[in-house]
Every structure is written in C-alpha cells, then in structure tokens.
C-alpha cells in the first residue's frame, strides 16, 4: 500500500545553510493494509522526518514514496493533496497543541464535514460521528460540546483518531501519540490501534519507546542516524536482535521484571551470534540491507 523506495532527506544546516545534514538515508519500507509498522529510534534518527514525508509535509531530497501506486511527492495543488488526505491522516505527539483552545474540541469534526462532506445531512452526520466515537470508545456525553482544557490528554488523542476515522482512511501515521499520556490511559490508545489494525487499516507507528513499539506492531524498523539498522517481524527483532546497535538499545531499555544488571549478565553468559553486516565505501550514501533470515534484514553499522 505505502512504499518508500531509496528515500533520502538532506537538510541544509549552519548559519548560511552551507553544511548538510542527512536526516534520512536510503530508506526502503513497505506498509501493507492491516499492518502496524513501528519506526523506532532515538532522537535524531530520522523517524519523525519519515512520518512527515509520508504525510507530504516535507519532500524527500531523493527517492520516491508511493501510496497505492501513486507518487506522493508529485502531488500538485490543493485538490490533489486534499484527495490524498482523504486516505492518509496523521496524529501527533502533543494533543493539547493540536486543538485551538478558543473553540470547542469537537469543532475538528465540523471542519472535516465542511471540507469533505458538505452534502451530508445533519442526522446522517450525527450518526457517523457517534459511530466513530464508539470505535474509539469515547462517551459522547463526556466529550462533545467541551473545550480542550476540559478533556484529558487521552481523550483528546482519541478524539483526533476519531476525526481521522471520519474520512475513509487507509493509512494512519501515528507520531509518538502516546508519549504524553499517563501509563493508565496509554494502553487504551494502544489497544485502539490494535482494533483499527483488525479493521484493515495500515498504521505507521513512530516511537522512541521500544516496549510500546513492541506491543502493537507486526513489523519493527530500528533506525540509527537516518538509516535502517534492523528491520523484520517484531518478534524476531526483539527476541533475536542481530545488529549491534539494536542490541545496545535493547540492553538499555528499563524493563519491568528484569534489571539492567540481569540483562547484561544474560548477554555476557550467552553472547548472540554475529552476522555479517553490509559495508559501504566511504562517501557512498546508500544503506544496503542484508537478509539474515526470512524477512529479517540488517543494515550498515554507523557507530
């Protein structure tokens, strides 16, 4: 459904834009319908830039992004973009800054209606809204007709997902959507994503938290300095990390039932087998992947 092919993004940095920063390096990625793909990386790994490029908020410097066979980067004009957003929507980290505090929170539904469904009758629209509210498990009485400050972060975040569901979306880009939520409400939003997946929605789940990425996703992509370090079925990536960077990252995650010392001791007692990593020549910007086992790829080492 969504396919990224040799995507690069180079930002100009420095006082006069003289220096260059390669934020995304030769990324190849596919998201199928009904699949959650986690993009996991530390700050500066390029994960949000990929999300932005998929949403058409910034253009790749090189490479192509196609959605259902159509090139996303060559969308021209308001009409084509609007049509694209009917199928692809994003939800972002901070739910409080996604709303205009002057207006009631459910105004986001009205905006969708006026731009995409101007012909729908009031009663039909009302039914549609109640329908999506039910999907995201929000009680309409508690949420409709309220201002953003009267709602919790979890409620606002689910409201934004409901807004996206009003359209016939096929791909949702979820950029750190639970980082600002409390532990007790986080899991509700994650479960909601799992529900949506079962309805056939493709989800690109961008996160820095490895345990969250693991909970919902079918496939995980670990990014390091803009390039893919490791990509594969979530279970394999977490049970048998092959890239030294993913191993390091996994050993640093605070776990609930195991301390860091225990994890280190386990690693030392049973060192994982090494795989041959692809190498590139100095000055070559590509980042080839090697298939180590079925569907499980490792990339170049940049440490």
């Amino acid at each position, binding site marked *: 459904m969504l396919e990224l092919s040799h995507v690069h993004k180079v930002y100009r940095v420095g006082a006069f834009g003289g220096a260059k920063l390669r934020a995304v390096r030769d990324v190849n990625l596919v998201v199928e319908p009904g699949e959650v793909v986690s993009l996991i990386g530390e700050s500066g790994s390029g994960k949000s830039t990929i999300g932005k490029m998929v949403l058409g908020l910034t253009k790749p410097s090189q490479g192509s992004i196609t959605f259902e066979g159509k090139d996303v980067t060559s969308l021209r004009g308001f009409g084509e973009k609007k049509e694209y957003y009917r199928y692809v929507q994003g939800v972002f980290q901070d739910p409080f800054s996604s709303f205009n505090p002057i207006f009631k929170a459910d105004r986001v539904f009205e905006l969708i209606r006026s731009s995409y469904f101007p012909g729908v009758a009031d009663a039909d629209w009302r039914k549609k809204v109640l329908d999506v509210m039910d999907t995201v498990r929000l009680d309409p009485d508690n949420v409709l007709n309220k201002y953003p400050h009267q709602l919790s972060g979890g409620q606002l975040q689910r409201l934004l997902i409901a807004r996206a569901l009003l359209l016939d979306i096929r791909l949702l880009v979820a950029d750190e959507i639970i980082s600002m939520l409390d532990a007790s*409400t986080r899991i509700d939003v994650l479960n909601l994503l799992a529900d949506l997946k079962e309805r056939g929605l493709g989800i690109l789940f961008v996160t820095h938290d490895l345990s969250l990425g693991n909970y919902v996703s079918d496939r995980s992509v670990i990014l390091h300095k803009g390039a893919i370090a490791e990509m594969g079925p979530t279970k394999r990536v977490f049970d048998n990390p092959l890239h030294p960077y993913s191993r390091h990252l996994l050993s640093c995650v605070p776990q609930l039932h195991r301390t860091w010392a225990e994890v280190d001791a386990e690693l030392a007692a049973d060192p994982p087998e090494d795989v041959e990593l692809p190498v590139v020549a100095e000055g070559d910007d590509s980042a080839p992947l090697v298939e180590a086992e079925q569907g499980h790829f490792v990339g170049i080492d940049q440490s």
Partner: protein
Amino acid sequence: MTLRVNDLKVYYQTLRGDVHALDGVSFDLADGEIMGLAGESGCGKTTLGKSLIRLDNRMRHIDGTVELDGEKLPISDDDAMNRYRYHEISLIPQYAMSALNPTRKIGRMINELLKARGVKPATIADELRRRLELVGLDPEVLDRFPIELSGGMKQRVVMVMSTLLDPSLLIADEATSALDVSTQRSVVESMVEFRDRGFIKSMIFVTHDISLVYQMADTVMVMYAGRVAEKAPAATIINDPQHPYTKMLIGALPEVGSTTDEGRLEGIPGTPPGLLNPPTGCRFKARCPIASEECSETPPLVEIEPGHWAACWKTGR
C-alpha cells in the same frame, strides 16, 4: 533516618478555592535510600518534591511536619529555609537542562551559584573536576556554553552541580525523562554511584516511568490524588503489589516481549478525581473494581508487613 515526613498537607490557592495537592502524606526515608516516587500526572508527586525545598507563593503549608536528620524543617518560612537549600537539600527540577543560563559558560555559572550560597569556589574546584570526570565528562566543559553540550551532557552537569556540597537529600524530578534510553541509563547509573560514594545521603527520584524506577530505586512510593497509595521495596511493588491502584497500574504497562497477540493489557477506566473538591473517603474508590461501603471512609496508611505500607481497607487484614 534522613527524612521523616508526617501528615504533610500543602494546598494550592486558586480563585476557586484550595486545590488539595498534598493531603496528608507521611513517609520515612532511610540513610542511603533511593526512593522512586511514581504516579499519574496531577497526583502531587512534583508538589511533594517542591514542598521539601521551597513553597512558591501559591502553595500554602496547612499541616504536618518534615524532619531532616532529626531537625525540623521550617518549610513554611521561606527565609529560614535558605540555610538548608543546596547545602542540605538539593533539587533537580524538571527540564533543568533546558534552564541553564545560555549566556554563561558552565564554569562561571557554577561559580556564581556557589558564591550565592556563601561558598568560595576555589575551595571546591578540584572536587568539581574530579566529579565531572566521574560522570564521564571532560573538565573542559567548564569553558563551554550550554548550547555546545548534548542533552545527556547537560543533565550530567546539572547533576554534578546540584550535589557539589554533598546534600543530605537530593530530589530529582523527572531528571531523565527527556533523554534517549542509552543516555538515560548512563545518567541513572551515575546517580546510583553518587549515592554509593556518599555524595548524597538519600534521594527521591520522581518519575512516571515505573520500569525505570525498578532499575535503580531501593523503595517505590506510589501516589494517587494527593495521597500515598503504597510504599514498599522496589521488587515488592513490581512483583507483589497490594493496593488495587498499584496492581492496575503495573498491569497496564506493556513490556518488551509482550504483544497484543498474547492477550491485551487493560488500562484503568475513568480519570483521577479533581483536587479542588476531592471526594471523601478513599480517593480511588470511583475507579476501583473492589470498592465497597467501607471505602467511603479514608483508609489509613498501615504497615501490612515490615517495610510495606498501603492505604486500602482491603489489604493488611
């Protein structure tokens, strides 16, 4: 006993009335103890940290006492507290690393801070360098501006700076939340090392991340709506929690290795009560699956087994 907090009540004054942010908090902190303080946003964990060092002008001390090393702290008297601040109690506030003065080099900033607290910088310069090296920083950072350092380096500078006078108590409020996992691990490990070397006697580590607390804390205290729900050794809180809130909170955390295929985790339905007019009795009763009539009375915090405290009518009998 480093710190003894007894029935502490601190309210925020607002135009609509008092917000009962801390409503009868009692706990002890032993020498050398690192206590993780966990809870949802708005449960009063940051207020507790702040109350121990400085009440800002909206906060009012209603009742209760705080004792540090056997001495009663005058927490409601801003001027009298000055003697303790930085010397005896030190705080790493949330976003501390973004609050470094951008116009000063790190070294000059630390010297100014020491002078403001009546300490000659020269007497401590060697120790400062030694400690910077201990946390893996080149003493050269003293000649750099904050903008030249990465997040993890800034957080380590803040940590060294705030513990330079060997305070009895260090309060770290979400000190590592903004860092990447690998940096977070090394900062947390240096904090534990500071305690092991006796630079700080004991520490309160405020965070919303219970799995992080499990990595480093000796004990964990869970707060809910301005009160203590449970306090116990870290392993007990994770493996054998007694208070229903703690149980549900731990149950809602996805782990590395858990997926939706193996069964879904459940969140806690509902939201914490507003603290402007808090409900009577147990504050968790509206969200609690086992609440009954007796919960309309406030449950006391009782020691259900040595070192394990919980405030719930259903435990400890």
